[in-house]
């Protein structure tokens, strides 16, 4: 009797701890985002006033200010261009590497995988200065392409790891079957592998887009005239009033959040492989 009683209470306590942890983690992520939202949609007076309201006023003044702010639209477009180039380049370079890792055995394969991860070990500030000097020498400084190249190197490790896990999820027999049915390696890829992997490739591309979209350091160092949205806001928000800081933050966070949410399934798959 007593064992079953203590069992139930243990189970109950366990459930309680589990529920509390989940709630805590959710709050950890959601509360700042919610506060950001509330303050973005509040009038300047409410943002700097006290006590705080936890219900947004739906005052779009701050957002309207940004829409008409000089250079803002230009920076937004720059961000989109850079992110788009990063997206295309990182898939064009990353996906073949992912395919090779999943399908072929070659010398130094493990080392290659390690090196891919190691590219993330160098802090960007360490690389930014020499890069800037190099970019000035070759004329890539303050260009969209130059920044996109840097962002591509940041995004490639993820592109390789995600596509590696995607390709590994497709049985090699499917490809072999296509070869015995009249396909070459290329047409087999085109008709069998590509249709199966396309959703994942899209997700991986969006992830690369988000990496570029969110990147601020390289953008701030490498561009002066052609600032991306992050660099532009960093530069201008520093001296802006509080309510504009909130609105600027909100503008940056929301697209990234939406994209990440859209591709979450594939990102989890990537971590599954990376953890092995």
């Amino acid at each position, binding site marked *: 009797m007593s064992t079953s009683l203590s069992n139930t209470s243990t189970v109950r306590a366990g459930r309680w701890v589990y529920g509390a942890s989940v709630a805590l983690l959710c709050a950890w992520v959601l509360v700042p985002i919610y506060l950001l939202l509330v303050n973005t949609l509040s009038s300047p007076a409410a943002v700097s006033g006290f006590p705080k309201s936890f219900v947004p006023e739906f005052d779009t003044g701050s957002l309207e200010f940004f829409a008409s702010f000089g250079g803002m639209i230009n920076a937004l477009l720059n961000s989109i261009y850079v992110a788009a180039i990063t997206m295309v380049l990182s898939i064009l370079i990353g996906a073949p590497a992912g395919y090779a890792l999943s399908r072929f055995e070659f010398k130094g394969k493990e080392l290659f995988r390690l090196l891919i991860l190691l590219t993330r070990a160098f802090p960007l500030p360490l690389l930014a200065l020499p890069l800037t000097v190099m970019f000035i020498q070759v004329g890539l400084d303050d260009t969209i392409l130059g920044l996109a190249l840097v962002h591509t190197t940041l995004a490639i490790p993820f592109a390789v790891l995600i596509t590696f896990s995607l390709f590994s999820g497709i049985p090699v*027999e499917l490809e072999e079957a296509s070869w*015995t*049915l*009249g396909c070459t390696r290329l047409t087999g890829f085109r008709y069998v592998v590509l249709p199966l992997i396309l959703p994942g490739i899209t997700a991986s591309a969006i992830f690369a887009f988000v990496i570029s979209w969110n990147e601020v350091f390289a953008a701030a160092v490498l561009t002066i005239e052609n600032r991306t949205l992050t660099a532009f806001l960093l530069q201008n928000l520093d001296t802006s009033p509080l309510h504009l800081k909130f609105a600027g933050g909100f503008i940056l966070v929301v697209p990234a959040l939406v994209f990440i949410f859209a591709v979450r399934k594939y990102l989890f798959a990537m971590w599954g492989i990376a953890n092995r």
Partner: protein
Amino acid sequence: MAEILIKNVAKKFETYQALSDINLTISDREFMVLLGASGCGKTTLLRIIAGLETATSGEVWIGGKRIDHLPPKDRGIAMVFQNYAVFPHMTVFENIGFGLRMQKQPESVVQERVKRTASLMHIEQLLDRYSGELSGGQRQRVAVARALAMEPDVILMDEPLSNLDALLRLEMRAELKGVLAESETTAIYVTHDQVEAMSLADRISVMNRGEIVQAATPMEVYRNPAAEFVAGFIGNPPMNFVVADRSENNQWRVAGEYYPGPKSDADQIHFAIRPEDVVIADAGLDARVRLVEPLGAHLHVTCDVGGRMFRAVLDSGLEVKAGDHLKLQPQLDRIRWFDKNTTKALEV
């Protein structure tokens, strides 16, 4: 005409010799089964014929044409994979028609052949389904139909039934045999299941450690195994071996009895007999019964003969129990002899 000629084919993976000097001729329309335990090289050989693996050395000819340098699509083969490999993003119809469309056949031919092979494999009602909506057996049928629709010279099958449950396997086995006999293609079928091999094959190639030990008709392989490995691998329970000591005039002493055997200089050779080829008699091999398994149709009796395990399949009406002493008389024309050292069969 699609005779297959395999000449001196060898395959080495890094340091591991998967196949060593394989020579095999498979005649047109023959059903050849490659039989062996896992790791014996049978699948590697099949994949070399298909072009999915390259041989380290040797030649492969199909229909008088050397093909070992060609990609799979130009070899006139079709293959059925162990895990079916049905394309998940295509309907059954598109799967079966995939090869034909790759060959750029006119749409009327595609329609006609897909429908014909689908009805041959009894899946015409599934043509609009996707592979995720099919059972294992249905997927297997799609895989076979997809290969047959190509009307290949040679159809290669890699353990196609091993993922099916026992009952379905029996059903598909019989069906495959009928369909392939009608299709008039040469077939190579890889399996580790000796019953499947016996029931399907025109000829069986028994493989062991990267070599073909014997290639012969099922009955020949069963009755006259070329080596102890074949004798022990085929048949359930497998052949019995007892040590035989040399005596006068090519007579050999086996567990207290004398039998006429081969000429040999060896002092000891192996006497071999199938479990069903012995009967209880007044004289014969001295046997002490260890275990009796009544299986309904037969009685499986495990005994001790000459210090070795010896299995006999006896009439189920007999009353035998553990501890009994029996005299087991072998049917004289069924006795086989093997060299103790080379394990090869000895001619009488």
